[in-house]
Each structure stands twice: as C-alpha cells, then as structure tokens.
C-alpha cells in the first residue's frame, strides 16, 4: 500500500489524457498509481481511496432562516418581501429591493431569537445573491446585542459577488467571545452601488473543526499520478485542506511481472 499526504486547494474540472474530470495530481516524487479504490465512497477509516482532512462544520446554530421578511427596521428605498421561488434553503428567501435613491450606510435589520449566544461558534454562514456584481465590502453583515443594530458588535464584509448568482458565504466572526446575547441581524448597504435586488437565505453560526471527509475516486490514470474525484472541491469551504490518498503502486502489485 502506498499513500500520499499533501495539501490541496480547489479542485475543478481539468483535462487529463483527453478526459475532463475533477483531476488531482499526486505530488512530485509519488509512486504511480497501479490501482485505487473507485467502487464508492469509502469510510473515513477504511484506509482506501481518498480522504480529505479540512476545516469543516462541526455544529451550527440557525440565526435566521429567512422564512419571514426582515422587518425590525426597513429603511427608506428598501422594499422587503418573501420570495418562495428563488431560494436555497427552506421554502423561501428574503428578497430586498433597493432603489437607486438608497443612501450608502443604510442598514436593514431583523430581530433574531432573544439572547442568541455565539461564543462557541467561529464563523457566520449564509446564502446571498445580488442582481448586479459587487465588490468585497459593498455589503456588510451586522450582529448586535442592541436593537436595530444600533451599535454592532460584529461588522463583517460580504465578499465580492457575481451578478445573479447564489453564493454561499462563510465569514469568520471577529469577536465571538462578545457575541453572547445577539438580538439583531443587519444588512448594510455600505457603498452606493445603485439599484439592485438582494436575496438572503439561511443565516447560521457555525463552529469549524478539522474533519475527515472520505471522497469518491471516479477514475485514475494507471501507472501515472493522476486520479479524479467524483465532484469538485471548493477550497473556500475546505480550508487548510490535506488530502490523504491510499493506493497500490506498481512495485507492490502482486500480479506485477517484475
């Protein structure tokens, strides 16, 4: 049995030997692959195939499920509604129409469960879509222990968004030890980017820890160092990822003639 342990980033589609797949190349100097387990997703403890060890969600707490329209404070030029057709989680998302006259710095707020305690969590995750492309910091997410996000404890930059594309965002909480009694969640229109429509869904606090995730190997190039995963790896959601691959190399194949 040969194995390789190496850091890995994003894995997208690429072409090897004329085949488009989610290819991964073993590090330089690795023994080539004579055989590798491709029959399914192995258990993390099986010792075969590929296992990814990365920061993953250990547990989570829903802060707002976006199943009702945000209404703690709806500023001028903001129109908030529920969208039951364009959503990611549950039966609806929160739709926010922002008029051209909206002023930079305006905050849309929603009441969250009284005294939501976040100290044991490390990140905030949510889905967001905007009708126009944005850059990082155009929108900000506020968490506050005072009403209407009057004096926010957490002010987190939403990363750049592609137009009309649902994006799953994971933001590190800046001061989770102070987030002991959150009562207000806000979306700040921090930069005047003009009229747009924003969809929001499934805000939750998450705690990340290193988890081992077995992955299915779909194919490999025999006697070479390429194997393909059955699906993509998004480096944004598998932070500090290491991949551990178990396989058979030619020099230990019992049927090898030499």
């Amino acid at each position, binding site marked *: 049995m040969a194995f390789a342990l190496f850091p890995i980033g994003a894995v997208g589609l690429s072409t090897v030997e004329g085949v488009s797949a989610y290819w991964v190349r073993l590090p330089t100097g690795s023994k080539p692959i*004579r055989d590798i387990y491709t029959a399914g997703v192995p258990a993390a403890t099986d010792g075969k195939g590929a296992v990814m060890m990365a920061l993953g969600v250990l547990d989570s707490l829903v802060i707002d499920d976006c199943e009702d329209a945000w209404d703690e404070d709806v500023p001028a030029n903001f129109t908030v509604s529920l969208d039951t057709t364009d959503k990611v989680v549950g039966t609806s998302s929160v739709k926010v129409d922002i008029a051209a006259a909206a002023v930079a710095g305006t905050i849309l707020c929603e009441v969250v469960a009284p005294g939501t305690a976040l100290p044991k969590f490390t990140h905030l995750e949510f889905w967001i879509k905007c009708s126009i492309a944005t850059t990082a910091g155009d929108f900000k997410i506020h968490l506050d222990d005072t009403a209407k996000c009057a004096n926010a404890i957490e002010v987190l930059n939403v990363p750049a968004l592609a137009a009309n594309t649902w994006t799953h965002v994971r933001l590190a909480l800046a001061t989770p030890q102070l987030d002991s009694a959150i009562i207000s969640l806000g979306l700040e229109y921090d930069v005047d980017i003009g009229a747009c429509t924003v969809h929001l869904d499934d805000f939750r606090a998450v705690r990340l820890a290193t988890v081992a995730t077995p992955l299915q190997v779909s194919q490999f190039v025999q006697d070479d160092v390429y194997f393909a995963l059955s699906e993509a790896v998004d480096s944004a959601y598998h932070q500090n990822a290491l991949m551990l691959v178990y396989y058979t190399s030619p020099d230990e194949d019992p*049927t090898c003639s030499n």
Partner: protein
Amino acid sequence: MVKGFGRMTLNFKYPFSVVGTTAGASIQCGDDPVYVWEHGLERYSKPWELAPDMVAELEGIEVIGGVDAFGRRVPIKRIVPVISGNDIGENISINEHMAPALRDGPNDPSYPFRDRLACINFGKALLMGGGANTTSIKMGPSDTLNFKIEFPTVAHGGDAVINSDLEIKAHIAFAKGADQMLNALRSSPVAEVATAAANNQIRQYEVLGDLEISDVIAPQVIDRSVPATMDWWSSLNMGLNADDPQIKRIITYTKNNQPTTPNQEMEMVRDGQYVQVPFQNFRWTATEKKFYRFTHVGVIPHRNMFQVKFDNGNSRYPMIFNCEPNDNPFVMPQQSLVADIRRGGPTELPRAYTLMKGIGSVKVTDNGVSIPAWAAGVRGFEIALWGYEYTLQ
C-alpha cells in the same frame, strides 16, 4: 607517438535549463556554446575527434534526464550518434525510456547491455573482447563523434518547452597506435577474432539460421575479413564505410498514431499512418539477402492494451504475448515517472524473433476498449525493440 588503450566515457551535456529548446527541435553538441562534451578536465563545445592514429568503438550510451518539474521524463523523439557529420541512425532511435543510466539507483547487474561498468547497448567492443559479430559503432582515425537529439512535436506528445538538463554518457573503447589495436585483437578471447588477428586480419563472423524454417532457407554465414590496419577500421560493422556482408544494430521504438479498433489487430506500419513517423515502421521484408533478428523488447502498455504479436509470414505459430499493465512481460528499461520503480528491462525474448526470406510485423490488440492515439496530453502505447539487421554479400 603516445600510445593508449582502454575504455573511457565522454559526457555529452545539454544544459537545457541554461539554453532551452522547443518541441520538434533537433540539437547537437556545439549548436550552442553551452552544449559540450566533457572528459576529465577537457570540455569542448564541438564533436569529439579521434587522433589520426586512433580507432575507437562506441559501445553504448546512457541517457540521463531530462526530467520535468513534476518528475516526468521529458519525451525524446530520437537520440542518434553522428559520426563525422553523418547521422548513422538508420536503425537507431533511442528515446527517453530506452537507455537508462547504469548508476541511476542501485547497481543493477540484470540490465542486459552491460559489461562491468560499461554500457554496451550497441555492442561490446572488438577491442575489449567483443564477439566477431559485434555491432559496436566503429570510428576510424580522425573520425568525429557527436549526438543528435530530436524532440517530438506537441501533437506527438512532446513538451512545448524543454528546459531541463540532459546528458548522454558515451562508453567508448579505444586503441591509439596500430600495434595497440592489433595487440588488443590478438588478445581477444573470441577465437575468430584472435586467430584472424594473428594473421593480421580483422574478421567478422556470424551464422544466422532459424530452425523453424530451415527447410525454406538454410543457415546463412556472414564472414568478412579485412586487413588489420587502421585504414580499414571504419569498414567494419557499424562503421561509416561498412561494406556487405555486414550487421547493423537496431534499437528503435514505435508509437501508435491511430486509435485501435476494439478487438482488432493493429499492424504497426507507416502505411495508413498507424505509426507517428517513418522510422517507427514495424514491418520488415526479409529477402534472400537481408535478414532481421530481434532479441529484446520493452513495452509501456496503455491500460487498454491486451496483446502483442510478432507476426512472421513463415510461421503459423507467431509469438503472441499478453501485454497489459498488470501483466507486462516486456519491461521498458525506464518508466515515464522518475519515482516509478527501476525494472531492469528490456526483456529478452524467449526465442529470438527472426525474419529470413519473409515478411514480419508487430501487431497490437486492445482489450475491447480502444487505445487512443498519441496526441497532446494523451498517451497511447510504446514498443521498443533491440535487434540486428543482417545484409549478405
């Protein structure tokens, strides 16, 4: 005059990391000042030249590198000796897998073309006790030695840019001074050589037959003697002025230029473009004057490869071998990846593949799934052969 006798190695160095080249290029020592040969403290950017009273034999070469940043051997289309400006590679086309460094890794005495520390993949030198049938490359007085490296095109699986160093280690036997040459031949353990030398002759001798077809063609004799003077040296086998009857070394390979049709034999012939370039044609017509004998084979199979057949028009029982990645009897001396194991190939055939007065060819069959043709980023299979071509008077 200074006399000399012995073996030496010349290191022809091509530091492509300093002056790189590109796909499809052809490079020789001296093309750029950084491409040099070295021997001890000598270092020149030009061909190596024999002294006017010197004869030599190129017994073999080791190809060391190039290896890319990912640990993969850089594809080479062809390495061929150039003697006094002449490409003598009619049957010599060595790629990156076929002539490993003898000291790359553990000392491997199983490597078939080895004589002590010398690489003898062309043939053991007459001067060093080689047989009367040896095909070491003969170089006469004032001849020069160079090596040409050709790289494949990207379409044939080559690298677009070659920027890792490559070295050819040439193993040479030499005698400086006519009496040194004669003494060496007279001391040969080979009876035909020593006896002839005692009579001031250099004799080349070989009997070639094939029991299977002895009723069709009797064993044939190649027997040629020339005066044991330096002037005649380059008329010996594999010399620039070699004359019939003679024996030529074959070291070559083939790669498929077409995908296989599932479950059908593909004949490795240039007609129909089944191989990439003409020298990869693996179909031979042996006449009453020209014969072929292949002794060693190396294969890097494709995962869909199933069988290799050495077809022989004179035989109803051609040699057939299963040849799959998991069951490959013909190991190539070097694999594509440096990290792969060293396997000590090529493999000697259980019986030499001999073609006399008939047509023969190599045919490949897949396992029911087509083997793709070589292309940019796509690999097919590769078959290398080591053998001899015999031409009668």
